[in-house]
């Protein structure tokens, strides 16, 4: 049964639809596979990873089919990646490595961590809001944003150093004041017996 040689598993992992193919991929299976992708796209799926590590044979026209699928996926703002490292497929897809992203295994294809999550989140948000911006505009906006952040940081830093100087000055003045008070008290203590004898008049007390 030439039509029934390929086993397919379709499952979702973190907003990505994984397709695991195993067996021989003959050209008779192309319409079937194309239809499956069309239905999956229709259902709102946008990120696809096709694991073909267990594909034992691949027809030349299958490679063309994947390029066409890539086009239709990209047209809908999606992504398509292939996962394999076996020799048969590497040879078949070698001329198209610059067009289709190829990963050696599932874990590389679906990276975890903050960046990957942000990226996925970003795709999801753009899908939800419908906002689309080109790459140069995105870079320009990013530079402007970075400039804003740098200016803000510079201002904060400047303010910080100014505050530190004022703090230092305040500290010095407070210390001087304390010393002056002590000095005044000491002088007053010395002059008090003379004042009591009436030799000196208390001029400080007379001040309004």
């Amino acid at each position, binding site marked *: *049964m030439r039509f*029934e040689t390929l*086993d*397919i*598993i*379709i*499952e*979702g*992992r*973190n907003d990505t*639809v994984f397709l695991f193919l195993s067996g021989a991929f003959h050209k008779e299976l192309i319409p079937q596979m194309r*239809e*499956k992708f069309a*239905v*999956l796209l229709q*259902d*709102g*799926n946008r990120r696809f990873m096709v694991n073909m590590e267990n594909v034992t044979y691949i027809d030349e026209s299958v490679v063309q089919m994947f390029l066409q699928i890539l086009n239709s996926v990209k047209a809908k703002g999606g992504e398509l990646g292939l996962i394999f490292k076996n020799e048969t497929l590497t040879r078949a897809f070698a001329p198209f490595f610059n067009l289709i992203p190829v990963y050696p295994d599932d874990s590389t294809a679906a990276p975890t961590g903050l960046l990957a999550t942000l990226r996925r989140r970003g795709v999801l948000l753009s899908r939800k809001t419908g906002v689309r911006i080109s790459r140069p505009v995105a870079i320009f906006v990013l530079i402007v944003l970075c400039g804003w952040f740098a200016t803000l940081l510079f201002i904060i830093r400047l303010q910080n150093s100014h505050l530190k100087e004022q703090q230092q000055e305040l500290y010095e003045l407070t210390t001087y004041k304390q010393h002056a008070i002590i000095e005044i008290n000491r002088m007053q203590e010395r002059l008090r017996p003379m004042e009591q004898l009436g030799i000196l008049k208390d001029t400080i007390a007379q001040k309004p």
Partner: protein
Amino acid sequence: MKRHALALLLHPCKNRLMPKTALKDAINSFTANLLSIAAEFPHLRFNLVFPGYFLESIDVLLLSKLRELSKKGNLEWILTGYTEPFLSLSPLNLTSHNINHGLQLFSELAGETPCGFLPPCSNWEPFLIDMLSNAGLNYAILSQELFPIQTRYCCGYWMAEHTGKALALISTNVINPMTAPANFIDWLNQIFSQDKSELATQKFATVHYMIPLSASSDPFRWLRYAASEIDKYLLNFQSVRFSEFISSNPALGLQYVPSSLLIEGNKQTDQHFLNYLYSFDQIGILQRKLLDVNNKLNATKDIKTVAPLIRQLCMVQDINRLLPGKEYGFENTNDRLWSYAKLIGIERTLYLKNNTKGGQIRITDFLKNGVKSIILANKSLKAYIDNTNGGQIFAFDFRDRYLNLCAAYSPQQHQPPNILVAGKSRTWFIDHILPQDCKSSDLINGTAKELGNLLNGQFEYKVRKTSSGVRIALERQCSILRADRLSPMSIEKVYGLEQDSPVFNFVYQLSNLSLMDCHFKFATQLFFSFPGLCSGDVKIRHRSQTFEKPGVELFQFTSATKWVIEDRLGGVRLYFQTQKPFDIWCIPASSPDSPCEPSMGLAIVLSCNVDLEPSSRWKNIGKVTFRKIRRKGEYIDAL
């Protein structure tokens, strides 16, 4: 008179599932009895067959005494594997693992590795020669029924060759407490006298005594008698261990034994025994599931997770679960559901480990018949769909309770031995187009006239994966018999699983493609295999009515949009809900030629009269929610 060599092969056999504690007691009692006989007759040498898992259950003190016997040269261990695998039905790597794990256990617990192998039920496969040789085993023991009639009664052992490897083959005379000879010595003399050939320098015979662990009578009475007789006739018969005889005597010659199996009660071995086996219902699905789970385990790289799961799979591989039989085997509901439960448990562990979210769709040749089946799965449920056989569901797992709810056994045999046969296999969503006046009794008696050809037709399918879950849409153009003329009609049915929740959806849409009115009764049949059917723990509730005896009595209720089935033994409750009302018939799943037997399942028929105007449609949507309820009693930790 020449002195003949006699090998006594003792085989404690456990055919039924037993709770762990009961198994422990039975093995200890067996060993204690055996040790007392060995102490009574110190010259007796015997060969003992033990599956590896017996060693895990045996008392340490008793095991140490067996070790001493072995060291003294009175005992030789024979292996069946970690369990007693059905070699013809099992994948090679699993069998190899089973044998190697058994050897490892012997080495760790018994202090030595066995050098002989006994295939359970004499299930022989030529590939075993290579596998056993590689594992370091020197000989295999088979029933004499497997050997050609010309050499069957020769007293000695043979050599067998396959793909460049050779192995010694020993033929045995299998007896059990019921067939054990009353006069042992006469019987032995008869065996030796049957061998007219002068091939052997010393004649050698094997007595394979099978001792049921759960026997009500005392099987050791005969063994004690046999041991005393051997002791009495010590000059005529020398009791030997297999390896000592093989190492000191040459083989009688070469033998080629094809794939065979000795089924109990069927003394004739049959080269086409697999055709016979697959003519039974359910065994095919059970074995395919075993293969599928084994493939998944092989693809998993995490050894820590896989190792205990493979051991569980070895338990399912046990021949006693995969042979037909009322007391034990796949015909027995308890055994069948136990095997499914183990497989579902392993699959569930692997599924959860993969971090799959929102469901999975698999399109694979699950039945290995050259046709793809579609498998929808999520965290709680798994449905196996055969789009070529009327778009039926042939297995349905409720993973949270390790239950295959669509595993009702049909006593009708399949010929040719296809795994699924429309009309015979007891599956879910078997569709019928019937006359509007058709009654439930007509369906039971088989007198209902089918107006459509939905039973075994092939459906076109489309699979869909959305954020709400996974589903499959099946579509078929068919025809309906209307006043002796066929009118075109199309049927579309959709099965779906909601994300990771235990909810199963189904939709039926019938379209009248002709320019004439159509009036018929649409019915779809579901066969359930609840564990509580036999014990009367299954109940069906509709509004205020409760039906206590489903699977035993026929009953029906009309215009139902909501009803509930619960099985307290299985710990599961099914909430059915449909958009439009159905008439529900609950039929005991017995066939016209077999008596009513609740263990064969419960058939529920959802029916309603449909009136279709030209170019119009009829549609009904349904939902089944599966809930866990408190289980009556605990799971018996069976082996």
